[in-house]
């Protein structure tokens, strides 16, 4: 099990807990979608798994070499070209100079950006930037890839294509992916398992397995999306009062 979360809790200062008693385990090579309304601590949970923040209670088990991380905005460095951005990740990992270039080019090719390596971030579209960011997080060469709403800011056409792209890359590279989203369709589209996180405090309240049948049957996938949406809304309604 690359990731095990036990009774994980997080509060900032004296405020109400953001996360409380989060239990989950994620298997090697699994694609898990972490779903929740805005402000449910999804990003905080991801930061904790990534080691960017420390939990205030509970225990967690993560791979010793850490995790690769992909943010909502591509966060590419504007002074570097697309290829150099990927190369920087390789460099900080300690890959030798000679090998960096070939590896970076191979990774850009993997995300279908073989011809755009010399372009600078501002010359790329949002979707292309996000693919460079994906290539960069793959360059980290960690088994675990954490993604924090990476496609939320993209237009629908681009997002659909990137879903296909991510699924293809997941299958090709065998990564373990934790994908945070607030989009139910996206969660069902991508995840093998969908974990629903409640809001304030965040806690895993329910989970669904997305089977091979959902993969081929649009009707079935729609049905599951409906069920999860209803449960999510119920969770949101609790906060109405």
């Amino acid at each position, binding site marked *: 099990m690359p990731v095990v979360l036990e009774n994980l809790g997080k509060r900032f200062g004296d405020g109400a807990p953001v996360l409380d008693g989060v239990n989950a385990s994620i298997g090697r090579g699994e694609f898990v979608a972490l779903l929740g309304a805005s402000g449910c601590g999804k990003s905080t949970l991801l930061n904790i798994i990534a080691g960017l923040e420390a939990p205030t209670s509970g225990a967690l088990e993560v791979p010793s070499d850490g995790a690769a991380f992909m943010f909502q905005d591509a966060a590419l460095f504007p002074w570097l070209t697309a290829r150099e951005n990927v190369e920087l990740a390789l460099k900080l990992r300690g890959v030798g100079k000679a090998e960096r270039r070939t590896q970076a080019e191979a990774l850009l090719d993997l995300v*279908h950006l073989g011809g755009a390596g010399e372009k600078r971030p501002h010359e790329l579209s949002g979707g292309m930037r996000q693919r460079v960011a994906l290539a960069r997080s793959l360059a*980290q060469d960690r088994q675990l890839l954490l993604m924090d709403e990476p496609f939320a800011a993209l237009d629908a056409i681009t997002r659909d294509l990137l879903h296909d792209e991510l699924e293809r890359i997941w299958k090709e590279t065998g990564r373990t992916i934790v994908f945070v989203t607030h989009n139910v369709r996206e969660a069902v589209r991508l995840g093998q398992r969908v974990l629903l996180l409640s809001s304030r405090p965040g806690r895993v309240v329910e989970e669904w397995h997305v089977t091979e049948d959902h993969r081929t049957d649009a009707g079935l996938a729609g049905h599951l999306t409906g069920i999860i949406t209803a449960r999510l809304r119920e969770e949101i309604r609790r906060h109405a009062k």
Partner: protein
Amino acid sequence: MPNSQTRLADAPAAAQKVHAALTRSSTSPADLRELEAGLDSLQSDAVRRARIDWSRILLPVAALAVLILAWQVYVWLGIKRRDLVPGPLDVIGQLGTLAGEGRLQEAVWTSLQRGVAGFLISVVIATPVGLLLAQVAPLRRAFGPLISGLQVLPSVAWVPAAIIWFGLSDATVYFVVLMGAIPSIINGLISGIDQIPPQYRRVGAVLGASRLQLALQIVLPAALPGYLSGLKQGWAFSWRSLMAAEIITVGGSMGFGLGSMLNQGRDLADMTIVLAAILLILGVGILVELLVFAPVEKRLLRRRGLLAGSTR
């Protein structure tokens, strides 16, 4: 029956494509590559080729011509005595004389050498100090106010102390230049670093950068636009401090710089020399900006996509 429906039924491949778009079963890799290439080209701007923009050259030249003409008209009106307000032609004549004697070249060369050397030493000292102050919070809190204060303190104030310590030598000039330039470069670098989007540091941490790597590979390049304007200001402070030092410090082993020329003009009560020196000091400043800083800055901003819509 509509034609398209029958055609769909006849073509299983087309039906499969529709199916793939609706469910999780992916689009085929070749298909995906093609779709993405299409989208990429739709969403990328065509590259615009820059042409030489003559207004960049003609407008400043025209502005200069208007100012010189206004000066000449003022002289023609004869409101002030000619030896108090010489005309453009008198000053140009004086510049010619000075150039003929070789004093113009000597003064420009001496001052420029000192200014550049002082500036470069300041850069070498200020850059690590600025980086350290910006990255280490206790140091920043301890020394930040002092550095800001030093930037406000006119570096001319150091001239008397420098003369007492170093006598009438080049060391005096360099000391004053360093005291002027170093604080302003440090402050420029610090404010450049303060304006880095916090996301960059997070990315650096996620990518596994050590503290030193973070500073050199991410923070420094990210702060480059702010650093560059700090350098520009640092050069301006170097040049100003140098002139102040040269005007006040005369004799000893001091060479003949532009400030000395200015001072000599005052001693001789020759307004043409005074104005010629002022124009030379101004001219060197403009040339350094045009030939050194402007191209570097423009290149830097263009590469980061920060130039669009600016009036440069």
